[in-house]
């Protein structure tokens, strides 16, 4: 296994990345994306450990990257916005690594906000055969929630909250009501036209609940059987995934990514390993 740390030109910036390559010819390339502010190896080396196992166990190359303004990349970043996801940076790094390694088939895994970038990459790249979205925030605020948020900025919310009746009537009823936005629906449907898609959550993640499950399963249910079969939702039991704040969670996330990616690249076409089962929530035994 070898590592190639590189600075990938991107506009006036340079995106820092490390490409990990197996000893044998790589069977494919996996792009590993962090959440908003973490550096390329991710907390507790989660992506570094994943990269080594992908290389050693499945002969897969991988590339992990620092978004602009993070890690060793150039630029500065005081504030992340979900509306300005660095998809172009991820595509630039993926394209660079593919050229450097001479591989066609790719897959992508991302955590938190990186999962939304991963989804966009999977939708954008026809050669992408698989994407893992870890702890993905897929629900956006409803119009009523947006109105309440705006009202909150004007100080109206604190007045409503101080009144028990109004609080019950308005805030609790509408503020939590969210739905998938077109930012999520479109790339999910587009990605599934050519790529497998795994949504990975913990049952304790605040980005996961019954509505998330309903929305995702509902999206997949609208698809033809072949595309629907590429969708999978997996819910880990126990502690939330945020921050990978336990050794056990780190182990289980790494295990899930390595095993799933290995299955995706198991056949020359990458199609053989599709999950031929209806979309279900499978809680992992504790």
């Amino acid at each position, binding site marked *: 296994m070898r*590592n*190639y*740390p*590189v*600075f*990938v*030109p991107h506009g006036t910036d*340079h995106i*820092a990345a*490390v*490409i990990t*390559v197996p000893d044998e010819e790589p069977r494919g390339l996996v792009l590993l994306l962090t959440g*908003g*502010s*973490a*550096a*390329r*190896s991710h*907390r*507790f*080396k989660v992506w*570094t*450990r994943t990269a080594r196992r992908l290389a050693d166990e499945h002969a897969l190359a991988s590339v992990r990257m620092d978004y602009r303004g*993070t*890690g*060793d990349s*150039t630029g*500065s*970043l*005081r*504030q*992340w*916005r*979900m*509306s300005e996801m660095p998809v172009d940076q991820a595509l630039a790094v993926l394209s*660079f690594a593919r*050229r*450097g*390694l*001479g*591989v066609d088939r790719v897959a992508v895994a991302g955590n938190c*906000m990186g999962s939304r970038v991963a989804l966009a990459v999977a939708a954008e790249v026809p050669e992408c055969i698989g994407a893992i979205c870890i702890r993905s*925030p897929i629900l*956006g605020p409803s119009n009523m929630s947006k109105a309440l*948020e705006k009202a*909150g*900025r004007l100080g109206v919310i604190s007045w409503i909250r101080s009144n028990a009746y109004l609080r019950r009537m308005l805030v609790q009823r509408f503020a939590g009501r969210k739905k998938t936005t077109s930012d999520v629906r479109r790339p999910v449907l587009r990605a599934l036209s050519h790529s497998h898609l795994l949504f990975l959550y913990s049952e*304790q993640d605040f980005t996961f609940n019954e509505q998330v499950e309903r929305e995702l399963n509902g999206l997949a249910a609208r698809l033809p059987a072949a595309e629907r079969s590429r969708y999978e939702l997996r819910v880990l039991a*126990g*502690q*939330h995934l945020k*921050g*990978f*704040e*336990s*050794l*056990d*969670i*780190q182990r289980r996330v790494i295990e899930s990514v390595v095993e799933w990616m290995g299955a995706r690249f198991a056949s020359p076409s990458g199609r053989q390993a599709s999950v031929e089962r209806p979309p279900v929530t499978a809680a992992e035994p504790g």
Partner: protein
Amino acid sequence: MAIDEAMLERHSRHRDEALGISETFVQPRLGSGTTVGVVSRPLGMAQPLGMAQPLGWVICPSFAMEQIHLGRMEVGLARAISAAGFPVLRYHGQGYGDSELGMRHADLSSHVADARDAVALMAGVEGVEQVGVLGARFGGLVAGLVADDGDLPFMALVEPVIRGAQYMRDFLRTQVFFDLVGTSDNGGSPGMEKLRDAIASRGWADIRGFKLSAQAYEEISGVNLLERMRRFHGSSFVLGVSRTDRFAPGLQALTDVLRQMGGDVEQDVVQDRLASNFGQHHHRNEAGNKKTDIQFGLYQEVTSKVAAWIGRRIVPGDPTREAPA
């Protein structure tokens, strides 16, 4: 299809004309394993100038989650110091980032061994004659130990950890608080004693995802920077980070010790209302799906003060000549 080694090698460096620096990835062996680091150089260093920049700097990274949270500030420091005329090496210590070894290998000995090897590596960079060290929080403690042991001429310590025992207590407490708020499935608060028992009986404890080894716990708990500084007589900069404009008593004691040993010491304070979170998580989720770095300004001020001290004290090209007052 073959790997395009030449292309990958060509992109292991970049030039930043605006800042006047270049940066090169390196993969040295530091401590007990290989790792990844970056050497930042003033653009002049790329020219065959021989002895033009005889002083290089090494940034000593911090411990556990601090290594992650202070990482970006250290990148800014490396670039600012390099832009001021000095080559700088930053690296992932063993147990962190892209390094070869796992978390359980990260302890005080490994941090010091990594830093010593990094100093030796920087001393071997063409044109570098002497090496200074700098670090923040636990990295400041490591920088102090390495500067003292190696008779280095310069060190800059940012809010350094003075007493390892207190540092370890605070570190264990983060897990206790984590359990108290009910986010762990460990069945309630294990408390400090249970964590200490786990370290003693099992040889490690899971501190919010970091594998704290018994060796790390014992080594760090036993170190006191005031007692370990024995002979450093170079130039030092001790920068406090505080909610007030006052220098913390521990840091004052450190500067007193440094002066008693014959070194020249400059001290300063960065005042910030979030000073107590220095080295801790520094991103806040905000309405509208935004995440803000709430210590962005603090890190910039630290960087600015360290770079200014270096600019005041040292003439690029001759570390024996101090800048005119």
